[in-house]
């Protein structure tokens, strides 16, 4: 299999030897080490992505609006639940340890469902990556979406690529000042809105939006809001592609999901090479379709040249596809010189073979199977979640008590979880020891306990086996808690120490 992603050669390598030698002895003598970033890292080269129009840009606009809408609107959806319960559709209630999502309510012990959901999400990401490359990175990753939004703001204040480059090069003036200030203030505003929206997922939104401004919201709300404001501003405004290239682990592991049959933004070198400038009326024979206009480079938000092949930095966003298609149309050449294609197809065409797209491959089959299994199990776990849980903690000290008449009594603590939104009275039964009698501390007779809605109640239960029960030292038994149609049971043992009299 050919190496698809060549990470071995950092771009700065060519310069670095020279750079290190250039550090003068005098500079070192001052104790400052390497003066410019020629040592361990390379300073960021500013990227000025140019606005591009086309199919993939339109898809990106649509997804930008869709994902941001979901993020900002979701906490404001109201949902009917019984009195005393949150009326917010999506709410992470840390204080009470509950998670609400429309009709689903999860307890902390349902963490396996959330875990399953996360594993399924990861597997879905693997599958999509194996099939279509890094679509997540290019279209729906929050870093991409917010960076895109920040570039829109930047363009609004400073103009498109060329105007921005001019402005950055220009000396400080009032014009430059207000444009820069306006941009940063708007960025901060958006960043604050992002952090502000986040905290609504953890608190009743209409209440929080009021208490937030009068200083009565929980400290965590202010801290979270500040944290997300800062990270959004810094990540989407200042760091941008550096987050993807240097901070995000995903580009480092995606190589394991991709193969030569994965659809990726690809420069069709079989059609493009040899490249070169093209004069009007010049014959296209004997040369490639690429006119070396660099439009694919100037629109790239990652600052790369896709014609160098697939690379670590590429987020597969397809903006270079749109840019190239526009040029190709102008040149009256077929579009798709840069397109979503596979390395295998490019290689096949280069050899004169017919390119075949193979979506069904062993890895896509494995990912699909794993996704189906994990997704199915998670869904089954969610659907089959009981409305009540019963947990039995058997007394360990003493493990049993012999009464004056030879009867044997075991003590248990039952924890009953009532997952419904209503108070329920659970009747407790004990199954496994003939003639056993249930009692509660301080009172004899049938044992029942009222568990408040959405709460756990604990109850001490004594089980007394009659003196003539003839029990084994350890008898398997079962507790049953029943409240109307809601029932829960739990296995335990009844210990009598028959073989080991006191």
């Amino acid at each position, binding site marked *: 299999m050919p190496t698809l992603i060549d990470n071995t050669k950092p771009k700065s390598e060519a310069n670095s030897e020279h750079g290190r030698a250039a550090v003068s002895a005098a500079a*070192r003598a001052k104790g400052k080490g390497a003066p410019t970033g020629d040592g361990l890292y390379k300073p960021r080269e500013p990227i000025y992505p140019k606005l591009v129009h086309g199919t993939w840009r339109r898809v990106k606009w649509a997804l930008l609006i869709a994902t941001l809408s979901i993020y900002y609107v979701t906490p404001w959806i109201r949902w009917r639940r019984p009195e005393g319960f949150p009326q917010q559709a999506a709410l992470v209630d840390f204080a009470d340890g509950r998670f609400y999502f429309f009709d689903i309510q999860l307890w902390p012990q349902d963490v396996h469902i959330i875990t399953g959901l996360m594993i399924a999400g990861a597997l879905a990401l693997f599958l999509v990556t194996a099939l279509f490359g890094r679509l997540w990175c290019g279209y729906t990753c929050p870093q991409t979406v917010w960076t895109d939004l920040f570039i829109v703001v930047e363009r609004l204040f400073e103009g498109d690529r060329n105007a921005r480059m001019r402005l950055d090069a220009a000396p400080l003036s009032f014009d430059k000042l207000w444009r820069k200030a306006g941009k940063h203030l708007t960025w901060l505003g958006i960043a604050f809105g992002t952090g502000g929206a986040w905290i609504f997922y953890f608190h009743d939104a209409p209440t929080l939006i009021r208490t937030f401004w009068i200083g009565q919201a929980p400290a965590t709300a202010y801290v979270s809001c500040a944290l997300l404001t800062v990270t959004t501003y810094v990540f989407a405004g200042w760091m941008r592609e550096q987050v993807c290239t240097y901070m995000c682990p995903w580009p480092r592991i995606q190589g394991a999901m991709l193969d030569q049959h994965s659809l990726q933004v690809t420069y069709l070198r079989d059609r493009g090479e040899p490249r070169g400038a093209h004069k009007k009326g010049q014959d296209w024979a004997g040369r490639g379709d690429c006119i070396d206009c660099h439009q694919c480079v100037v629109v790239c938000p990652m600052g790369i040249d896709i014609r160098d092949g697939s690379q670590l930095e590429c987020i597969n966003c397809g903006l270079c596809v749109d840019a190239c298609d526009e040029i190709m149309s102008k040149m009256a050449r077929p579009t798709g010189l840069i397109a979503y294609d596979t390395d295998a197809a490019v290689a096949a065409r280069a050899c004169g073979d017919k390119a075949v797209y193979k979506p069904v491959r062993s890895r896509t089959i494995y990912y699909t199977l794993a996704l189906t299994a994990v997704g199915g199990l998670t869904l089954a776990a969610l659907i089959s979640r009981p409305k009540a849980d019963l947990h039995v903690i058997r007394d360990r000290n003493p493990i049993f*008590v012999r009464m*004056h008449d030879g009867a044997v009594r075991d003590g248990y603590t039952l924890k009953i979880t009532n997952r419904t939104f209503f108070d329920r009275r659970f009747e407790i039964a004990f199954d496994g020891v003939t003639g056993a009698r249930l009692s509660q*501390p301080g009172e004899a007779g049938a044992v029942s306990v009222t568990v408040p809605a959405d709460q756990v109640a*604990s109850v001490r239960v004594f089980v007394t086996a009659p003196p003539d029960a003839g029990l084994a030292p350890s008898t398997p038994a079962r507790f049953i808690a029943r409240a109307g149609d809601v029932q829960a049971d739990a296995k335990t043992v009844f210990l009598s120490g028959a073989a080991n009299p006191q």
Partner: protein
Amino acid sequence: MASERKTDDVTGVETTGHEWDGIRELDNPLPRWWLWTWYACIAFAVGYWVLMPAWPGVHGYTKGLLHQSDRAAVGHELKALDVQRGAGAAQLRTASLEQIEKDPKLQAYAQQVGQSVFGDNCATCHGIGGTGGKGYPNLRDDVWLWGGKLEDIQYTITHGVRTGAPGARMSQMPAFGRDELLKPEQIDDLTEYVVHLSNRPADAGAIARAKPIFDTQCVACHGLEGKGDQALGAPNLTDSEWLYGSDRAAIRGQIFAGNGGVMPTWGGRLSPETIKAISVYVHANAGGQ
């Protein structure tokens, strides 16, 4: 080793003049951040001496402007804890024992308090689980020397047993053998008789011989049928629970020496509400009467 300071050709840094085997030591300055951290530490230390207790003296130590004291801090925390527990403690103080046991919330609270205090004070003799041991009553079963009602338990805990304090529980099993009140063979016969009381096979001749002795010596406390008397702390001899052991040697030893355990008087050492909590805990977790 030379001591002449000169400039290093390669780096342009002045050397310290020290040289070992051709290796020269450069006189690089300390990193700025390191120096500033050091100055900050010095400033902090000076501030610390002024604000916090720091210097030992002949008559104690410098108190510092903040008058920080760990002992006082613990005192404050304990007071805060008292306030925090105040509501529950007040409820325990005012509620009757029956009320505590009938109210699920108050009972749960009393059980928690009771369990923790029991572990600290009672478990030494009665065991963590309250099952006692030889000479120390089992508090988990339904056999009671001094009565198993809530009030009985509370009284026993408050006043103790054989402590000499006024109101302490007191029972006097005579040492029939040691004090030579009975002859050894009479004690042997009585042992058989006591064994037979708890429905175990025993020597019929000895039982017949011991009957009159039992009737004259033992009935006063243990009753005609040997069922004991909780008012006097006399154990029931017909059940299967034996404080000092159930075999013949143990029973004989008890008749011979008449052992009796001592339980501390807890009234005055523990607050009334704490004693209530332990009472409820013991009563609820045993075959309370």
